């Protein structure tokens, strides 16, 4: 048996390379992908490989009539595909439906709502396709070029321009305020959920379906290193009632990261996240955050620290940007004035003069 290739029922399977494997599966049916999966299981019994191939066989079993698969996009179960009708590139995400409860109520609500909403800075859900036997469904999104994290890595020089940063920030805020105008909280604004077209700088925030209500939850997601980095303190404290302010917090974190290329509050657990936030923004007390003692009776465990100057932490950001950031990541703010302030600052006149918006 040569390393890499194995014969399964007379078929030479090129499973050495993930991409070719996917291409292979997309053009064949479920049994073959299953065989392939078994073959790989036998030869390379490593967890990672199996996970990848299990996912492949999912979509492989799918026999989509309208789309062909190109490659796996990231580890969160997103695939790049092409429409066989328009030959446009799309992003695919597969969901498995629970056989007893049926389609989850939250999913029905969210998808039907998304169909009614349209915004240039929100990823559009093109359609939902069912599998042949009506057991799985695939969400078809418009193409997601590159996420903001990747964009910052690949084009570090582009990101140093204040103009680019403003252009991007303005679009993030546009998407977020759009959600908020419909009384929806996104809840998971982070660079991985924001996509940028490197040429046009058009930015699109992914919808709010995928973090929650996705049944084949990828085990990686909740433990991703960056999961907590963009979370507002009120979520970390597990306050019961959330407001739209928590999205603004996340936007602030993303904004700071666009300048410094590293997360503003890097931490790996919920506890450390709060520590980190308090060490920079100052430990909250009744005066700086009314109601904190009641919300978080154990807040005394955090060592007292005074707010630090964001100008030192985010060097290279102009004063107007610092003002904006200060508002976005302030621990407590009456969230009505919050938005008004953020928007009046984000509508910086020199940005609008560039005339490329919306």
């Amino acid at each position, binding site marked *: 048996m040569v390393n890499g290739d194995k014969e399964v029922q007379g078929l030479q399977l090129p499973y050495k390379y993930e991409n070719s494997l996917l291409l292979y599966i997309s053009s064949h049916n479920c049994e073959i992908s299953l065989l392939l999966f078994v073959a790989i299981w036998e030869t390379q019994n490593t967890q990672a490989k199996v996970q990848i191939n299990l996912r492949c066989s999912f979509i492989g079993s799918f026999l989509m009539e309208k789309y062909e698969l190109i490659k796996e996009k990231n580890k969160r179960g997103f695939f790049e595909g092409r429409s066989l009708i328009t030959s446009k590139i799309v992003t695919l995400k597969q969901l498995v439906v629970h056989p*007893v409860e*049926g*389609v989850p109520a939250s999913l029905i*609500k969210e998808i039907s709502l998304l169909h*009614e909403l349209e915004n240039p800075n929100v990823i559009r859900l093109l359609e*939902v396709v069912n599998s042949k036997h*009506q057991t799985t469904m695939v969400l078809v999104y418009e193409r997601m070029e590159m996420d903001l994290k990747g964009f910052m890595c690949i084009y570090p020089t582009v990101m140093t321009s204040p103009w680019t940063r403003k252009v991007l920030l303005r679009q993030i805020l546009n998407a977020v305020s759009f959600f908020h105008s*419909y*009384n929806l909280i996104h809840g998971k604004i982070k660079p991985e959920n924001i996509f940028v077209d490197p040429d046009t700088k058009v930015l699109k925030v992914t919808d709010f379906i995928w973090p929650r209500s996705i049944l084949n939850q990828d085990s990686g997601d909740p433990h991703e290193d960056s999961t907590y980095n963009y979370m507002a303190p009120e979520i970390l404290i597990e306050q019961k009632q959330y407001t739209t302010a928590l999205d603004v917090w996340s936007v602030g974190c993303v904004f700071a990261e666009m300048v410094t290329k590293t997360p503003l509050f890097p931490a790996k657990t919920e506890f450390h996240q709060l520590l980190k936030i308090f060490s920079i923004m100052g430990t909250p007390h009744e005066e700086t955050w009314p109601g904190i003692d009641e919300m978080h009776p154990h807040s005394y465990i955090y060592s007292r620290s005074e707010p630090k100057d964001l100008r030192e932490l985010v060097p290279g950001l102009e004063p107007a940007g610092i003002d904006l950031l200060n508002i976005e990541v302030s621990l407590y703010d009456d969230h*009505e004035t919050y938005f008004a302030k953020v928007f009046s600052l984000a509508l910086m006149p020199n940005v609008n003069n560039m005339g490329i918006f919306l």
Partner: protein
Amino acid sequence: LVKNLETEYSVLDLPLQNHECLTLLIQKESQQFVGFLDYFNKLKNDNLFLVARQQAVDWISKVHAQFNFGPLCAYLSVNYLDRFLAVYELPKDKAWMMQLLAVTCLSLAAKMEETEMPLILDLQAGESRFVFEAKTIQRMELVVLNTLKWRMQSVTPFSFIDSFIGNLNDDDDDHHHDHDDG
């Protein structure tokens, strides 16, 4: 207190003026109901079909009452049923299809509107000639969702009532502000 009221309002306010809102509602309503006229004519001319639909609606209203679902849920179920039948021809010899469709539509509507959702199996409480497995209903759910293009936020008379009430409130506000724009 005044400030709070304002807060409420700006958060709940639709990003549209009221008359635009009405136009949009009417527009959406006609978009959602594909093939309404043909369907209406079919109901008028095909007596068997009319009876079958009536039975399905009766069953829905019976079970709906049993579970104490809200009025919007009932409306949505029948709306889904009609919209589905308008674009999808059920085989005439399979009477169970209509029953399956009724269960599915009620299940979907309850999922959209109700906070507490009984198990799909328990939903088949009203006396009916056919009882389906949960798996069958789940598949039918996907068929219906797909056929209706996932547009489950139907425009209903309730949406119009909400809009009219909004209009009334606006008038009240105008009086308080001594006709600012007059």
